[in-house]
């Protein structure tokens, strides 16, 4: 199954992916228009630091987003049955019509990548940009640090 991978050595923490993600899920094309939408659209990808500035390795960052896990805890915790695996794409999807904003998924997601969209009373997460050819974050990354590929082509570090 294709997943989104962030090559940490290439990530410069510019957060372009965050912006592109929010715009891609806003229903409009341009960021200038997206920031006018109320409630504000949410990004489902988030750049976090994985290194300390004051260490020899220096600051490093990663764009975190839903892993569409093999055994998704969010789906197990979901009290409505709204979070499930899409049989066609293999992606874990949250049915917005079922979500009751109980945040059980947020309670269990070990990567912290489910976003509380309080204004719309639902949880949102990466959907691999189902309606696009390529996820918006991948397109947006200026250093090509974000890939959308099968695990065998991914830069998975093995200890």
């Amino acid at each position, binding site marked *: 199954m294709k997943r989104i991978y962030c090559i940490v050595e290439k990530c410069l923490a*510019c*957060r372009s992916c*965050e912006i592109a993600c929010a*715009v891609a899920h806003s229903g409009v094309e341009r960021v*200038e228009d997206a920031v006018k939408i109320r409630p504000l659209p*949410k990004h489902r990808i988030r750049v976090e630091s994985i290194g300390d500035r004051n260490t020899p390795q220096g600051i490093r960052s990663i764009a975190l987003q839903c892993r569409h896990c093999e055994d998704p805890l969010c789906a197990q915790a979901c009290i409505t049955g709204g979070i499930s695996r899409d049989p066609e794409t293999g992606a874990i999807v949250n049915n917005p019509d079922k979500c009751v904003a109980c945040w059980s998924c947020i309670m269990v997601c070990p990567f912290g990548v489910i976003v509380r969209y309080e204004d719309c009373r639902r949880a949102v997460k990466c959907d691999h940009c189902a309606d696009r050819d390529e996820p918006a974050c991948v397109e947006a990354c200026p250093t090509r640090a974000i890939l959308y590929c099968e695990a065998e082509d991914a830069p998975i570090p093995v200890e």
Partner: protein
Amino acid sequence: METVWDRSEQQEPRCGFGEMGICCRMCHMGPCRIDPFGQGAKLGVCGANAELIVARNFCRMVAGGAAAHSDHGRSVARTLLLAAKNPESGYAVKDGNKLAKVAGILGIDPGNKTKEEIAAAVAEKALSEFGRQEGELSFIKQAPEARQALWRGLNIVPRGIDREIVEMMHRTTMGVDQEHKNLMLHASRTALADGWGGSMIATELQDVLFGTPSPVRGQVNLGVLSETDVNVVVHGHEPVLSEMLVLAARDPDMLKLAESQGASGINLAGICCTANEVLLRHGLPIAGNILQQELAVATGAVDAMVVDVQCIMPSLPSASKCFHTHLITTSPKGKIEGARHYDIEAENALHSAREIVREAILNFPNRGNTEIPQEKMDLVAGFSHEAIHYMLGGRFRGSYAPLNDNIINGRIKGVAGVVGCCNPKVPYDREHVDLVGELIANDILVVQTGCSAISCAKAGFLVPDTAHKVAGKGLTEVCEAVGMPPVLHSGSCVDNSRILVALSEMVKAGGLGSDISDLPVAGAAPEWMSEKAISIGHYFVSSGVFTVFGVGLPVSGSETFARHIFEEFEAILGGKWAVEPDAGKMAGLIIDHINGKREKLGIGKARERVLFDMEMRRNLAV
């Protein structure tokens, strides 16, 4: 060969924080950025919020643009001083009438001074405007009384040009002015120091030195480059360089040298604003606007590309290396790695210019294959405010009254200045052409400068007969009656100051209110990219003009700031900003604004809007 469009593509996606103006690099506690979707940081490290960050970035763009225009003006003033003091310099006063007029504005008593003495006094007075610490810039007096009073009330009349720019930089450094509205008032003062200061000094003194433009025929587009002539392309902004090249290229010795190298002549063509300067004063051909600088080189027919300052792409050396083209820099302020440098300001400018032309001629035999596009277009340009004044009324009864009369009777709905750069982020030239087409179709007289004028020239808008096919009936009638095209090319980007003077003249002519902000006029920069455009935009807004920019403005990261310049500013200064990337919608905004002003003046008779469509575009073909 890589072009600006290739590199633009490689820059995609542009960083949204920069596009929205919410990236702050003022200090190294950062860089900081605000999450526009509210999930991340709402404040920079120092505590600056989105509006402050956007405001500081915007203000620094104003300062950058004002600095560029003004330093250009300073260089013209120094050249005038040189011309007055040193007849060997190659420069001389060409327009005595303009000298007298400027001397009057600057409060210089001609007495029984010689032309050179007056010129020296004018140059020195102009130079002192830069370092002035208190008081008011002299050219402010050109503005309508009501406008001057408004500025005084807000305490934003520029004192000295340099002072306002320095203060703008100071106020926007870490931890100084933290109120976006207060910052924007100083941005107005800084921008006014450009439009009514640096830029106006540049324009007026260039006219003194090189002549005030009057209507002239010319040609535009890459097709003006010659297969058989030595092609010297001059690119940049200051006519201080190009005027000397014009003289050198006409030198019989040089022509002889060219013939000896197998060329049939010397073809001096321009790019960007320098092109506009030499076109307006000499009718020399324009090879293209800013985005065509690499394309000109790519014809393989440019024997020398001679540049000075502003809008010169650092990609030119690598582009030139693909061909035989020699890249030559001429300003000590603007050197480029890989270019030959001739200092035009040192010693005798004409001598340097001759050396440059000689180098171009000697390079002619090195030409490889050339590929010059066929496209070229005729044009008429040279509409300084004096020329417009003359055309409207004739030499002895020159007046803006006929223009005002026709605006009042509704044949002409209003006037729009369409100016500014070209930007590879939008389809090339199209926004300019579509906007101007729709404006004239709706009987709005268009005044143009800069690269925008070149875009429209290429489309044929500067050919009166062609433009009339698109222009509305009323506008065509008036233009035909006075023998003026509906799209007036007024010069380079510093020559936007001509538009300020023209607007003031319109107010003085009467019948259209007492201030620029009463006039049914608007400004637009549909494909802007430079800091200079922001400074121009802001001096138009601060002079009371509704000004629309295309492409997008880096302010959308703060709704509060955007509201301030898009709405609140009108109550403060009578003008306001707008942003609209779509040319059709931009035309709509301008038409609505002009109709609104007409309504307020009691001369409004709304007419159905005419859309600039494909049929009209086809009509443009000559």
